[in-house]
């Protein structure tokens, strides 16, 4: 039982972590609550479906293409719909909701509300200490770790990473120091959408592809990001595993209440916030006194 909970929680947590990191990045740097983040993840999923099932491309090619296309789409959205109204926080929020809705409707129009599926990269399952785990789930677990390390290295070792961090700390000073804040935000957006698309590529075989598939991960992702502290990447990572474990605990200890796993996860988020209003690894923003 304990083993089941640990393995299942780890896997759930990794999938959530993949989603939350990208979202957290763009929130920390550009202060954009990008509701459309998971809608872009869905876009990648549909593009992979189109590539593999309808055009018959090999899976890796379809994945690469979908990641590139999604990033381009994300940058276009940022450039045309978010950047011009960046000063109006509420307007940005609505704009991203509207974009997410438009993406949903486009897929509803083209594919209908049908449930679609994509075959996994690696078929089959492994038995780890008596618990069956599909290879695809293990891949997601490994990838989450690789990406966390990758994002960390990127932020600490590269020039763009340095720029992103300094913009995240103090936008105005960064601007005064001669940095092109807009371009940094653009770069961050690109990285963030890229992460969403990669997540889409890895997670898609695990889930059902359908036009409302962005809603549930969105809510969990928001909960994780708040739990971990807005803009903190470590926080998102830890938060993802906390909620992942919470979910599997509910299913194993309270099978009759398995449907409550979302409610319990969100209640945990609220409890943590009651004790630490800035989340676990909260970074306070300079304009919030």
């Amino acid at each position: 039982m304990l083993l089941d909970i640990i393995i299942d929680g780890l896997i759930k947590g990794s999938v959530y972590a993949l989603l939350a990191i990208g979202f957290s990045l763009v929130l920390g740097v550009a202060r954009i609550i990008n509701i459309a983040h998971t809608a872009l993840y869905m876009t990648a999923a549909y593009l992979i479906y189109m590539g593999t099932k309808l055009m018959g491309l090999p899976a890796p090619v379809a994945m690469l293409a979908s990641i590139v296309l999604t990033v381009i789409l994300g940058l276009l959205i940022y450039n045309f719909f978010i950047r011009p109204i960046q000063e109006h926080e509420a307007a940005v929020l609505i704009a991203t909701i509207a974009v997410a809705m438009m993406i949903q409707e486009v897929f509803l129009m083209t594919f209908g509300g049908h449930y679609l599926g994509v075959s996994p990269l690696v078929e089959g399952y492994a038995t780890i200490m008596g618990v069956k785990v599909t290879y695809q789930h293990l891949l997601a677990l490994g990838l989450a770790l690789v990406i966390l390390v990758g994002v960390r290295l990127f932020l600490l070792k590269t020039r763009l990473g340095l720029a992103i961090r300094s913009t995240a700390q103090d936008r105005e000073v960064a601007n005064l120091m001669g940095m092109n804040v807009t371009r940094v935000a653009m770069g961050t957006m690109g990285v963030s959408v890229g992460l969403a698309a990669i997540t889409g590529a890895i997670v898609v075989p695990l889930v059902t592809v359908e036009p409302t598939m962005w809603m549930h991960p969105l809510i969990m992702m928001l909960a994780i990001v708040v739990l971990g502290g807005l803009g903190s990447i470590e926080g998102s990572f830890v938060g993802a595993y906390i909620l992942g474990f919470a979910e599997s605990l509910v299913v194993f200890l309270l099978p009759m209440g398995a449907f409550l796993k979302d409610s319990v996860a969100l209640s945990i988020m609220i409890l943590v916030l009651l004790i630490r209003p800035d989340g676990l690894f909260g970074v306070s923003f300079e304009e919030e006194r």
Partner: protein
Amino acid sequence: MKTLKLFGLVFAALVLSFALCLPAGAAAPIKIGVLGPMSFTQGEGHWNGASMAADEINKAGGIKVGKEMRPIELVKVDTNEFLSIPDATNAAELAVRRHKVDFLVGGFRTEAVLVMQDIAMDAKKVFIGCGAAHPALCTKVTKDYDRYKYWFRLTPINSKFLGKVDFILLGTVAHIMKKTLGIKKIKVAVVAEKAAWADPIVNISKKLLPAKMGMEVVGVWRPSPVAKDCTAELSAIQRAGAHIVFTTFSSSVGLTFAKQMGELKVPAAAVGINVESQKSGFWGATGGKGEYAETINTYARVEITPKTIPFYDKYVKLYKQAPNYTAGTYDALYILKEAVERVGTVDSDKVVSALEKTDYIDTAGRVVFDKSHDVTWGPNYVTSIGTQWQDGEMKCVWPYHWQKVFYKGTVPYKLAPWIIDYWKNKK
């Protein structure tokens, strides 16, 4: 003054558009509103079934009302009920009040159908439900007959009977497992989505299985109807050593569950209700991992009545998918036609009394409405069927000589090879 103009413009647009859709000319055709979420499989079923029937009837000259032959005109009412209840009610009201439909068929999500039922009753329009299974819809007819008598349900059979068939299927599979694998006491994991309609099935199974059917219930799991991941439940079920997973799913969780169960090759047979596995798209959506899932169903390519196979083949040919129970609108139109022709009018009250006397063989069995205007279940009436996915095809596996009922084309139930291997090695 711009504000004024703006408001003026909006109102003008409103008025204009309402004026445009006023019914034009005399209502020579009989108008039938088809309610359903048209972008989803359920709504497609509603629409496809109805338009197939309307085409056939119109080709044959239409419906004979008194002495004149009147064609059918279908009104597509996209209720969008999965995403918005107000939308569904607005669409239904538009159909009733603006398009002035004579009859309504369809409806799926119970929460929406309850409100649409009210709208139809307010307007005294006959509404034949083809999608929502909840008994509450029909108990209203017995409670307040004068108001709710215009409501009838054709598909599916109500959830009380669904439960009955459910246990019969479970018993059948348990029997097969006992015989082939030599298991003495069958262990059952009850997995039902957390929804009110599934509660009675769960409660009864907790009592009935140990007491009457000689099985052991090793646990009850209630995932959310829209859960996206069931691996935790599946690990727990395997730990509990279940032979059979008794499923009760109507929503997307059924797909997730069946897919992950196949991926992990869980050594237990899935039996019960799984609406997702009634759809043609199930095989593709699970990537073939949903093989061996068994569910209650309404249509399959077997000879339930002489009409079933021609209907099924034509439907597949036209729409490239198998009909699911929302395509019962096909039968609904024929039943309406037959009732209208008997009384020679489209007057709602008279059609209601004609429908109450209906005894009609349709594609799913012999339809007789009971006192609560629900379709009657039982041998020689509508039995519904059990289907199993075998090799990418949805095969009918029940009734297999049950109460002397056997439909031509039914095949024996198959156990998944990994289940046989696992339990044979275990011994």
